[in-house]
């Protein structure tokens, strides 16, 4: 960023976890948002609780590019331990802010960037008596400094502070003091603003800043889920935190405290999945959030749900595998394991939201699909979507929405029919009717993971068995017309396409713009669900060259496309990013450049 620019920059703040920097960083991001500037906050934190390096990255982009930017304009290097690496990450021409209370090691410097020292600790030590407060206020103080450097509206910050500390006057005062100290110091001692800075804009009206786990939890509330069972696991834990929070807020009888929901912290993921199946079988909308290891543990039960046709909803907030892997890093590497979770010929319906907004509506869709298709539906988000702060359009709830419970016969429906058979395909769409236990004697049936015939009776008969599993396979075809189709940006002019999925979206869109500026027009399809429907097939057929951008090592989405749509491998070129950090537009552009260069060389 060598030319002065407005509302296009990335700040990265290096810190140590457990020092309270999160709220300061969040405040900085929100103040930009309130100034009307599109913004995104990404948190890179360790898998421990206190004392290890942590980073927070804020990208402001008037143009609305909200992927990880891949370049750092201003590094706030508050962690001596990582100073060395942090220094190297700054883009040429960029800035590094550090705490000059203590001298930097002389060797650690660069000529192509500007180093800014502010004696943050010193200032705080002088102004705050208590040790813990000093640590906290150092964070607030650098926000003050940055506000000055970037010309952030101080009033906005102060408003944020007064909202946050409405009930804590002493803290409000301390925070305001720290902001002022930082701001004042910078104004007095530094060249402000920097060549890149913030200016009031209008791009964030009717938008919110939210993480995908919170919006997933909120979506479950609105979708009418009444039972949630879970076992804590990073990065999915806050889905249930969100659900619980909003349930407590909206579904508790103000007088009796009685709850219109039931949340169970299970003993493990096997149990969580069992609880969801039990509750869904009993007629409730039930769900469980988890991450990779949980999916592995749920495999047996997922297969049970598939074969017995129980509508269950699972949120898999993907993290970096294999095994425990890097639990606080992001990946999209559970696509294969979710699609085929469990032994035998099992396959699952998947949804792929791309951001918190879509997580909210995906919750609704997942429950509707699960009920209509009577099968487990897994929503695959990831750590990037689930735990980072994304700017999204306001959420709305259609007041006419009614849950689509599918072929669920309640007592009054059963009264009207002669006989009920659980697995009899009356309508020819491979979907059969189910009932609610306790409703009516006519509705009683026996659910079993062992061989059953279309009347629900136990069978070991080859023919009866085939009737059921072949119908399940046909149901997969039915599912194609029910699941959300892909999001497509198409122009006949282009014969190159990109297919991607979930949290790759922002990076890909930005990459497509970049490529467009270079003269390479690229069409775009974002997959939203498995099974793939006809539109997916058409898009692929309409292009000579297609890049599949995804965040895993083994090209899992591409593999599924090849398998399910019988696409020849050479038609799809893999673009794989899987180091645990969110993919950037630059990575996508580079990969395509490289591939094109290969084409030229060949």
């Amino acid at each position, binding site marked *: 960023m060598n030319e002065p620019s407005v509302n296009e920059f990335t700040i990265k703040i290096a810190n140590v976890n457990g020092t309270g920097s999160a709220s300061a960083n969040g405040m900085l991001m929100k103040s930009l948002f309130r100034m009307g500037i599109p913004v995104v906050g990404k948190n890179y934190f360790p898998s421990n609780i206190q004392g290890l390096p942590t980073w927070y990255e804020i990208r402001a982009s008037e143009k609305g590019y909200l992927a990880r930017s891949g370049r750092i304009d201003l590094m706030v290097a508050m962690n001596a331990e990582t100073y060395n690496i942090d220094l190297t990450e700054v883009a040429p021409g960029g800035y590094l802010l550090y705490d000059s209370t203590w001298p930097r090691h002389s060797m650690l410097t660069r000529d192509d960037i500007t180093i800014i020292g502010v004696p943050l600790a010193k200032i705080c030590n002088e102004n705050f008596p208590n040790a813990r407060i000093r640590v906290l206020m150092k964070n607030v103080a650098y926000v003050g400094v940055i506000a000055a450097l970037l010309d952030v509206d101080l009033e906005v910050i102060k408003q944020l502070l007064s909202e946050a500390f409405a009930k804590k006057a002493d803290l409000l005062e301390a925070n305001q003091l720290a902001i002022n100290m930082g701001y004042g110091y910078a104004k007095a001692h530094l060249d402000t603003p920097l060549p890149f800075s913030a200016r009031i804009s209008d791009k964030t009206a009717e938008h919110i800043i939210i993480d995908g786990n919170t919006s997933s939890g909120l979506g479950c509330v609105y979708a*009418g889920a*009444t039972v949630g069972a879970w076992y804590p696991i990073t990065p999915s834990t806050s889905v249930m935190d969100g659900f619980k929070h909003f349930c407590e807020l909206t579904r508790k009888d103000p007088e009796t405290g009685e709850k219109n*929901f039931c949340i*169970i912290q299970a003993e493990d993921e096997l149990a969580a999945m069992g609880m969801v199946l*039990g509750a*869904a079988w009993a007629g409730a909308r039930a769900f469980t959030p988890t991450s990779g290891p949980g999916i592995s543990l749920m495999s047996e*039960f997922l297969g049970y749900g598939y074969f017995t046709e129980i509508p269950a909803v699972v949120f898999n907030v993907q993290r970096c595998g294999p095994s425990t892997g890097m639990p606080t890093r992001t990946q999209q590497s559970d696509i294969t394991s979710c699609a085929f979770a469990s032994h035998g010929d099992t396959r699952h319906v998947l949804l792929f939201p791309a951001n918190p907004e879509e997580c909210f509506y995906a919750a609704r869709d997942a429950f509707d699909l699960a009920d209509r298709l009577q099968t487990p539906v897994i929503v695959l988000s990831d750590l990037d979507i689930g735990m980072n702060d994304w700017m999204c359009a306001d959420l709305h709830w259609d007041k006419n929405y009614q849950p689509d419970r599918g072929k669920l016969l309640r007592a009054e429906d059963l009264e009207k029919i002669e006989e009920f058979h659980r697995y009899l395909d009356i309508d020819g769409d491979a979907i059969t009717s189910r009932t609610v*236990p306790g409703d009516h004697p006519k509705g*009683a049936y*026996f659910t079993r993971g062992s061989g059953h015939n279309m009347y629900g009776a136990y069978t070991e008969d080859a023919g009866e068995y085939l009737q059921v599993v072949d119908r399940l396979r046909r149901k997969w075809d039915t599912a194609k017309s029910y699941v959300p189709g892909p999001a497509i940006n198409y122009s006949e002019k282009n014969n190159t396409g990109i297919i991607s999925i979930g949290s790759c979206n922002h990076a890909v869109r930005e990459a497509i713009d970049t490529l467009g500026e270079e003269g390479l027009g690229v069409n775009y399809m974002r997959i939203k669900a498995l099974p793939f429907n006809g539109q997916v097939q058409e898009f692929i057929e309409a292009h000579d060259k297609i890049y599949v951008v995804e965040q895993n090592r083994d090209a899992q989405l591409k593999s599924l496309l090849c398998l399910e749509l019988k696409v020849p491998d050479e038609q799809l070129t893999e673009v794989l990013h899987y180091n645990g950090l969110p993919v950037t537009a630059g990575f996508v552009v580079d990969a395509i450049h490289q591939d094109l260069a290969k084409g030229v060389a060949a």
Partner: protein
Amino acid sequence: MSFMSKPTVRHPKLPVNDIGLTVRDYEGGMSTLCAGCGHDSVTGALVQAAFELSIPTHRFAKLSGIGCSSKTPAYFLRDSHGFNSTHGRMPSVATGANSANRDLYYIGVSGDGDSLSIGMGQFVHAIRRNINMLYLIENNGVYGLTKGQFSAAADKGSKAKKGETNLQPPIDPCQTAITLGATFVARGFSGDKDQLVPLLKAGMKHRGFGLIDIISPCVTFNDHEGSTKSYAYTREHFNLAIAANFVPPVEEITAKYEEGTSMPVKLHDGSTIVLRKIDQDFDPMDRISALRNLQENAEAGEVTTGLLYIDESQPEMHEVDNTTKTPLVDLDYSQVCPGNDTLQKIQSRYR
């Protein structure tokens, strides 16, 4: 062999219960277990108990894991919903079902393999949550369905059919449950229906988790000499500690009970279990006494049966959680959707 294959022919002279059903209405499909299997007797006792309690059949939910024992829900209560889950995981499914509908009678049927090996974790946690259900372990000391391996309930020194001796100590589900705070713990014997039926009735009516460990011999793999779970061994070492008699709410308790030996325990729906001490050392209201006796008797090779421990004062899961009294499945969507206005309000925090 499906539970649907059996036509319900009603015998005109069969007695009916308070809701006009006969015992036949509580039966299920034809059993596919071995002739003489203890589990079939438990099935029979369950049919009798459910019939005598006059509960509408469709108000039961019967759940199980995998094993010969876990097959039995297909053989009773034909008009009840059934859920034959995966091996060892019935407790979680029952917990989930119960969370969604607190008003049904939940009967979980499991085996000693199903509950004490693969299912141990879930068993323990269902107890801890005090799920309102009747949980049966049809305990034969072996894995019947996979052909006779020792289970974790096999006694030290018990002999397998082919002669091998079990060398590991057994897990006693009753002692384990009492230690973990279970609120209703009993032991029965499939060969003693008179004792079993009242225990089953009491267990169904108990508020919270009711465990009955039922010694239920496997005639095919564990009914030989040297086995400590055979009919012969169990009959010989049978030791009834606390007899229980179930009295429904409407009936008056007429008998006089001697202080200290007989005691009525009121259940939450108004019915009563009348306990009678056979073993005078045993106090079924006192955890430690129950444990001590169980352990001492076990060491002496005795099979202690009866209602071993009861505590009607503990809240079950929904009471702990303060869930609404209406089963969640019966809530209308309007009762759980906060609406768009609230959504807009909520979002003000995210700006």
